[in-house]
């Protein structure tokens, strides 16, 4: 959506952000830093665990969404409307374990636009974001929120 002011963003518009293949090396590297539980960092312990093998940290699977969103020019650019700052997110669901070698397809769809009294230069954009396995199984989803600069300050959508 980069280059789009808040007024120009269309509710319902959907974008495939790209695919990402999780390697064991990357899963372990992320988890050693931020989520060092045995089923994320230790292949032997993981094979004896509830999950039967290494799985990616849920925070890793959602961080990859952000990486692909930025690569798809959602968020801030050096020129154009200011965007890419978020007040948070809702309803993040880790539905299925993500294992080494899996390739996920990430997407985003605009679901709602909210004018902001507190920040008349900006509007809020809400999106439904997903990661799916090759067979279409939904692996991860969440509702994202982002501030996007308005072409004209204030007023309704």
């Amino acid at each position, binding site marked *: 959506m980069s280059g789009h002011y808040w007024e120009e963003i269309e509710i319902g518009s959907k974008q495939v952000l790209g695919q990402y293949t999780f390697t064991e090396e990357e899963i372990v590297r992320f988890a050693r830093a931020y989520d060092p539980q045995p089923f994320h960092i230790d292949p032997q312990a993981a094979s004896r665990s509830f999950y039967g093998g290494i*799985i990616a940290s849920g925070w890793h699977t959602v961080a990859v969404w*952000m990486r692909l969103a930025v690569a798809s020019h959602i968020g801030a650019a050096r020129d154009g409307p200011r965007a890419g700052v978020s007040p948070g*997110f809702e309803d993040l669901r880790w539905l299925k374990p993500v294992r080494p070698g899996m390739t996920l397809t990430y997407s985003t769809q605009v679901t709602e636009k909210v004018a902001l009294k507190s920040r008349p230069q900006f509007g809020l954009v809400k999106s439904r974001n997903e990661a799916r396995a090759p067979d279409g199984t939904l692996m991860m989803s969440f509702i994202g929120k982002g501030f996007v600069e308005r072409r004209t300050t204030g007023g309704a959508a």
Partner: protein
Amino acid sequence: MDTPRYFEDFRVGQKFAFGAYEVTKEEIIAFAREFDPQPHHLDEDAAKNSLLGGLAASGWQVCAIAMRLATDHIFNQAQARGGAGVEDCRWLKPVRPGDMLRLEVEVLATRPHPRRPLGFVTMRWDVFNQREQVASIVNTPIFARRSAA
């Protein structure tokens, strides 16, 4: 208070407080290069013109650091079985280079899994730096039930 190990050890209203995680400029930029390469997470000058008013960590990195603190102080002492998800996350204030993050945790709800020997524990993680609260993360990790151990 003893550290909880199983689902049954968690009680609504329980509180835990811990952590001291220093967020360096190098770590902010390294995380952003890999996962959130927007100018306000990478470049001091570009960040000044953004809504954040200066270089700040990706919100996803703030969540990841909160996870690290929770892992070290709760999950790796307990029979943790992953997470169901995050009901609500609010990034309240920017996290800057040099900030020292800590976590206050409150248990909001507990619910046994309907079929499996597991239970869901909904908790709120309030993340603070040395000045103020910077994030609030309501999430639901899963723990083994003692009765099935």
